[in-house]
Structure formats: structure tokens, C-alpha cells
């Protein structure tokens, strides 16, 4: 539940981070959902701008080696599929195609609420329900630094470790790893396909630039 809800980041970062779900209901439309989910997957892949995709039932995400044809075979009686995008235009285009396809499967988009509402308005869609994040409460002193949380919360199941994130940042700072390679490494533990490697690489690049500036003010 809610695994894409509590992503941390600045508004600027979140403008480049959208997650997408096609979700069946066990009470309404899971039975016989395979062909519809495969159609949605096909539309998703045709869109071309998808950053990552998968779902936990498949055991690994696209960036961890999940092949689209292998994934398609897992979608009978599945709870759904997930993906992430870095471009708002791609989300708009995908929703337009899904509206036309009219599969009847519930569609959820996570990201900046006002921007998603604007996309919906432009496509004459009527958003139904929203899940709001009211922040982190309790023992906040135990949390790592915000830059780390911006990365780790891209896996809503908490599979991306703080220690791995700090180590990746250090390797990027030291020039031992590119931001893209480090983002790919960080995406490996997340099986759901919502870890946005493009956004992660941008965060790591910013960490490297900040470090270089500190060294050579």
C-alpha cells in the first residue's frame, strides 16, 4: 500500500518524477485481467519514455533485468503493473492513449497533485480520489539526511538502504562511479519498477557538483 506516496524531494525534483499504476481489484475486475494488463503494458512500452517498470510479483524490475515479454506472462490474475516516468508530457500522452483504450482497469498516477490535476483537466478526465502525504512523524531524529531520503523513498518498500545510498554518493563524489551507474546500482533492490533512475542520477550529479564546489570555491 501507498508505496509511491511518501517520496521526498524538492518541487523541482518532483516535476521530473511520476509513477504510474494500473491496478486491478480482487473484488471487481482481477478475474480475466491478463489481456487488459498486457494491452496497458504494450501502450506503456510504445510510449518510449518509460524509465522503469515492474511489480513485486515479478520479483525484479526492468532495470534489474526484467524482460517485457517475461513480464507480460505474469499478468494473468495480477494485482497490476507499475512504472515511472521523468517527463510530464509522457504521462499526458500515456493517459490519452489509455483513455482511448478504455480498459476499465483503475489507473493511478503519483506526483505533484496540481500538475496531475492539470493533465486530467486537459484530457477531460475526472480524478476520483487522492492519497495525501502528511509527512513523517515520531522519532524523526533517527532519519538520515534529506539527500539520502530523496533517494531511498523512491523505493516505497524500503528496500534501498541508507548505507548503500551513502556509499554510492561517496563513489560518485570520488569519481569512482558515474551518477548513472550509481543510480543503476541503487535501483537493484527495488522490485516494483518505481525507482526512477533518471531522477536518482540527477540527485547524485548534484551531490558531485556540490562536492566539487566545496573543494574549489
Amino acid at each position, binding site marked *: *500500500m*501507498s508505496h*509511491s*506516496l*511518501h*517520496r*521526498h*524531494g524538492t518541487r523541482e525534483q*518532483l516535476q521530473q518524477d511520476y509513477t504510474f*499504476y494500473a491496478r*486491478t*481489484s*480482487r473484488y*471487481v*475486475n482481477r478475474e480475466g485481467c491478463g489481456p487488459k494488463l498486457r494491452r496497458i503494458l504494450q501502450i506503456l512500452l510504445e510510449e518510449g519514455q518509460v524509465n522503469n517498470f515492474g511489480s*513485486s*510479483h515479478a*520479483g525484479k524490475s526492468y532495470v534489474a533485468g526484467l524482460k517485457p515479454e517475461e513480464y507480460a506472462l505474469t499478468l494473468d490474475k495480477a*494485482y*497490476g503493473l507499475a512504472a515511472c516516468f521523468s517527463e510530464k508530457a509522457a504521462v499526458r500522452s500515456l493517459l490519452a492513449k489509455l483513455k482511448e483504450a478504455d480498459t*476499465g*482497469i*483503475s*489507473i*493511478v*498516477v*503519483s*506526483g505533484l*497533485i496540481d500538475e*496531475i*490535476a492539470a493533465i486530467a*483537466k486537459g484530457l477531460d*478526465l*475526472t*480524478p*476520483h*480520489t*487522492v*492519497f*495525501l*502525504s*502528511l*509527512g*513523517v*512523524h*515520531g*522519532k*524523526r531524529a*533517527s*532519519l538520515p539526511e534529506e539527500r539520502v*531520503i530523496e533517494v531511498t*523513498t523512491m523505493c516505497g*518498500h*524500503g528496500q534501498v*538502504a*541508507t*548505507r548503500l545510498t551513502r*556509499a554510492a554518493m561517496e563513489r560518485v563524489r570520488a569519481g569512482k562511479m558515474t551518477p548513472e551507474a550509481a543510480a543503476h546500482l541503487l535501483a*537493484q*533492490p527495488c522490485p516494483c519498477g518505481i525507482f526512477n533512475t533518471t531522477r536518482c542520477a540527477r540527485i547524485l550529479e548534484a551531490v558531485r557538483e556540490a562536492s566539487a564546489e566545496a573543494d574549489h570555491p
Partner: protein
Amino acid sequence: MRIDAEKCMGCMECAEFCPMDCIVEREGFGYIDEDECVECGVCLRVGVCPNDALFIPKESLCYPRLIRAQFSDPGVAHPSTNQAGRGTEEMKTNDVTGRFRRGEFGMALEFGRPGIGTRLTEIEKVLQTLMAMQVELEENNPVFALVADKTTGRLKPEVRNEKVLSAILEFKIRQEQLEEVVGRLRPVLAEVDTVVSWGLATRFAENGSLPALSRLEALGVPARPNGKVNMGMGRPIVEP
């Protein structure tokens, strides 16, 4: 999870992948603090060990320890819900299930998130407060199966000290209960020995607005600008 001491070469490659940071070096070899391990399976799944020294011992598959993997490994199903995942369909399918109607709010308190983990005792502290407020607990959430007494919120004694990566309390309230529920929850949440990510599900008003936003702001729990939006594309739609 455990490391086979006969196979471990002491490279410690696995340690940085552990979300609980509970793999340490002991006498030149990797060692997992099993009291802190939540059985998420990340170290094993990423295939980082060059000598296949990581393994799931039979103790990890026995109740009550078994619930650690059920809450922490997204690929392991809960026997009570017969599906993987810590929660439910919640608002993702609300357009076709009508679980949250206008006049109602869904709430989700996710303990241990982000990245800290939680003992189930921390959930019990809050659950007892909720039970006194007549909220409607979500029976299809896997935490519900661990409750021993539905009137007090006491958990089954054998599970109370189990540690998980995260677990969610899901419940529903009438919209007029918002001020009371938030007011009573905040001091209790401030005292728990972990972190809690708090979510609220609500219908859009017929004019597309979200009246809950100003009420939450006034209560000192403002909503973040990003959230999850059910686009209303499921069919047949309930309560358009």
C-alpha cells in the same frame, strides 16, 4: 537471514545493501544480528555474495518470526490476505470499489517508514488509542490478523517484539472526526520509538477541489505537494 561461516570470505560486500544495517564484521567474517534483521531478503536477492554464503535458516520460516518476511519482503505473501504487500488496494481501486466515499477519510499510518523499521509494540501503542476513538479498522490489512483483542487493540503476545521493515495501520473515519483523530494521534505518534509516515485518502469534491487541505493545514499536519491520484478510469465507476 544468516551467513554460512564456512562459506563467508569476509568481503562484506553484502553489508551495504542491508536496509537495517545489521550485517557486521565479526572476527573477519560477516555476521547478521538476527534480532535486528527484518528478513527483507535484499542481501540475498541482489546476488551480491560471491560465494553464496547467505541463506534463509529454518528458524526464519517458523511463526512468529515468519511474519518479519511477510511485512518486509514485497515478494512474500501474507496468509491472512493471501497476497504480498503490507497493505490493501486502498484508494488505488476506489473508483470501482467505493471504499472511501464522500464524507469519509481513509487513513494510513505506516510505521518504520522511511527506512528505520519498527517493533510491533510501537504499532500497539497507537492501535490502543485508535480503538478508543471508534475508528473503522481495515480488516483486510495484515496487521488486523495480529490483533488479539479487537476492543483494546492488544496484539498477540508472541508477535509484539517482532521487528519489521514497515507495517501499516489502515482505518476509516467520518470527516467530522478529523480534528479529534488528528488531535489525539499527534501526541501518541510523537512518543513512538520509530518513525511513522502518515497518509490520508479523500475523494475530490464535485468541483475538483480538495477541502481537506485547509483543515489539515489548520491542524498542523499540512499535506505535501505530491500524492497519489486515482484518475477515475476504472469501470464500472462507483460514485463518480
